[in-house]
């Protein structure tokens, strides 16, 4: 039987087990006149779990282990001469041939040796399928019978089911955690490989970024310079421009919406502002590159300023627009969280509305607002698409927002785009840049969350 059919069959069986045993538990309680320990549904769930889990676990095991067992079996039929001294890639090619012959999709002349192995492969596949069907059916059925045999009025089905649910929840949480750890470790390990080729001090304190490396041994070319400082200043420069746009606009919009606007206006305006966060960044990117940057350059030409057509200013302005909702939405939430009693207290002293907002409401909400701004900043630092399209690639070490700069994220993109060797410092540099970026945004996020949490405690 196909694995998918088997899967559906097991699910069907466990559904039936649920229905049947819910009903059985109910009748049991009625006929024996005793009270069930758990609700009837839990007896149903209990048997359904015992029916489904053994079969599904077996299925999972098969999915993980079957492939390698089958290929090992098939390769054993190949003449030893084909395998001796073969590189892993060549063996992989042989395996692919065997598989396509077995499936009948191989084109061209079939090597008799391969044909033998392919026959073996088909044979093994058939056996494996029969074995899996029999085993998982047996497992499900015996699980079901075992569970049914345990059902009586005193049996604590609810506790058992809840244990299974808890294990499932733990599994979900662990998946997220291990994925994070895995990503961090892989970035870290590749970075360490990079630092073996390029000294970490050169990377952290170097003032020149020019990752041109000879692609072939005989090619003339520089050895490349991997100083991250120009990238960091570029990133911070663009983020700074973005924050200069987003913080005043976002904060003032939040103040208007939460303190002055009528409920009707607020109900319309708030979702509209939040739409800004939903626009794909690539759309912002070509908006920045095709509209804002030329506009700035032309305007600069009018007043005698030389503005590069790919300027930090253009990228920063558009990025600022993009992060307005982060600032305004969070600020709005925190301003609303300031208790009405504080406003009343200020009004009762004869404070005007603007005095109340400036001197009581905003200071009270300030930690939350700062947290929101830091979250927006970490978003700005990690943003890629806008800067790729609008900020350019030249790694200038400058604080002039009118010049072209480049950012950490942009460089990661350019380092990895196209065909690359995976062991050249040029490629590995991307991991080191990723690590830097990760540490930077992590610090900002931790700081922001701490501030936000401290604020929350104040009014709870």
């Amino acid at each position, binding site marked *: 039987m196909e694995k998918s059919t088997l899967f559906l069959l097991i699910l069907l069986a466990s559904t039936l087990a649920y229905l049947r045993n819910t009903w059985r538990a109910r009748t049991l309680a009625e006929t024996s006149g005793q009270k069930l320990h758990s609700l009837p549904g839990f007896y149903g769930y209990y048997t359904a779990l015992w029916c489904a889990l053994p079969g599904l676990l077996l299925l999972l095991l098969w999915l993980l282990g079957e492939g390698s067992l089958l290929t090992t079996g098939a390769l054993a039929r190949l003449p030893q001469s084909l395998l001796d001294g073969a590189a892993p890639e060549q063996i992989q090619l042989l395996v692919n041939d065997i598989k396509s012959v077995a499936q009948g999709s191989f084109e061209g002349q079939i090597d008799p040796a391969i044909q033998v192995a392919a026959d073996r492969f088909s044979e093994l596949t058939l056996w494996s399928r029969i074995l899996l069907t029999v085993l998982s059916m047996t497992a499900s059925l015996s699980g079901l019978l075992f569970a049914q045999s345990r059902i009586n009025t005193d049996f604590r089905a609810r506790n058992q089911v809840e244990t299974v649910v808890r294990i499932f929840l733990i599994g979900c949480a662990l998946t997220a955690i291990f994925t994070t750890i895995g990503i961090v470790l892989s970035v870290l390990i590749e970075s360490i490989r990079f630092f073996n080729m390029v000294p970490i001090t050169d990377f952290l304190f170097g003032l020149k970024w020019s990752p041109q490396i000879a692609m072939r041994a005989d090619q003339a070319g520089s050895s490349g310079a991997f100083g991250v400082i120009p990238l960091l200043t570029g990133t911070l420069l663009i983020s700074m421009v973005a924050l200069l746009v987003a913080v005043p606009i976002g904060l003032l919009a939040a103040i208007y919406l939460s303190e002055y606007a009528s409920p009707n206006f607020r109900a319309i305006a708030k979702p509209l502002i939040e739409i800004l966060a939903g626009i794909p960044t690539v759309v912002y990117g070509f908006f920045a590159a095709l509209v804002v940057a030329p506009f700035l350059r032309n305007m600069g030409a009018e007043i005698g300023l030389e503005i590069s057509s790919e300027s930090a200013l253009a990228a920063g302005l558009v990025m600022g627009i993009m992060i307005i909702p982060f600032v305004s939405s969070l600020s709005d939430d925190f301003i609303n969280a300031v208790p009405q009693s504080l406003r009343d207290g200020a009004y009762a002293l004869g404070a005007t509305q603007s005095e109340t907002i400036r*001197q009581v409401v905003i200071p*009270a909400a300030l930690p939350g607002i700062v947290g929101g701004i830091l979250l927006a900043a970490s978003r700005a630092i990690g943003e890629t698409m806008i800067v790729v399209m609008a900020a350019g690639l030249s790694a200038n070490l400058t604080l002039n927002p009118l010049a072209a700069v480049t950012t950490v994220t942009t460089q990661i993109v350019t380092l990895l785009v196209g065909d690359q060797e995976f062991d050249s410092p040029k490629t590995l540099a991307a991991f080191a840049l990723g690590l830097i970026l990760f540490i930077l945004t992590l610090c900002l996020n931790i700081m922001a969350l701490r501030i936000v949490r401290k604020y929350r405690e104040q009014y709870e």
Partner: protein
Amino acid sequence: MTTLENSTREKPFHREHRSTVGTFTSDNPRIVCRSVDVYYGEKHAVQNINIDVGRHQVIALIGPSGCGKSTFLRCLNRMNDTIPDCRVTGDISMDGIAINGPDVDVVPLRAQVGMVFQKPNPFPKSIFENVAYGPRIHGLATNPSDLEGIVENSLRRAGLWEEVKDRLAQPGTGLSGGQQQRLCIARTIAVNPEVILMDEPCSALDPIATAKIEQLIDELRTLYTIVIVTHSMQQAARVSQRTAFFHLGHLIEVGETAQVFTNPQHQLTEEYITGRFG
């Protein structure tokens, strides 16, 4: 028991009677209210209130929950303006000047009529800044030492100076509940008001803190006119000279506190103060 039932039967004003009984006027009134009505949208929350608030007196507003006493209190410094949909009609005047018109500037009014709330609501600033806030926004102090004088004086009058004089820079939110409430009173009197409104100022406090606040109210009476809303009839009896009883948005009875508590004219007043409802 029989005597009480007899006295109830003899009351001249029965439960259905809804116009104010007792003396609602005062010889030396600071605030005069005539035909005051308050609406929350369609709801007629407070109906046709006529009452005088006497100078340097404490008047207690009592009544069951939702009877409109807090709503009425908030008319006296126009705090109802901050509630959307709330409408106040009628004549309210302080020292002969109307305060309920649309063209009245509420800022100086609220400086004259201070308010203390049910739950202590110190600003998340230092103790000093909490008290200094009012004088600052009204420009009452010309120089820093002046301001320090106002703060110290206000804290002294609120009976809090000795407890906080060494930690004025610490946050006001770190004080105990009773201290916070006295800080709010100090904050209120720092702007030098003439009237202080108190909306159940002791309902969130323990008995000892309550006793301190009650004693404070009695002392403050010599300088200010005080209107206090309270749930506790004992408190009303202890601190006030006049008492007004509200029920379902109507002012049922008003008079000298001793008179209202010992010889209520209206059947509802008697039932409330003897604890038969409320």
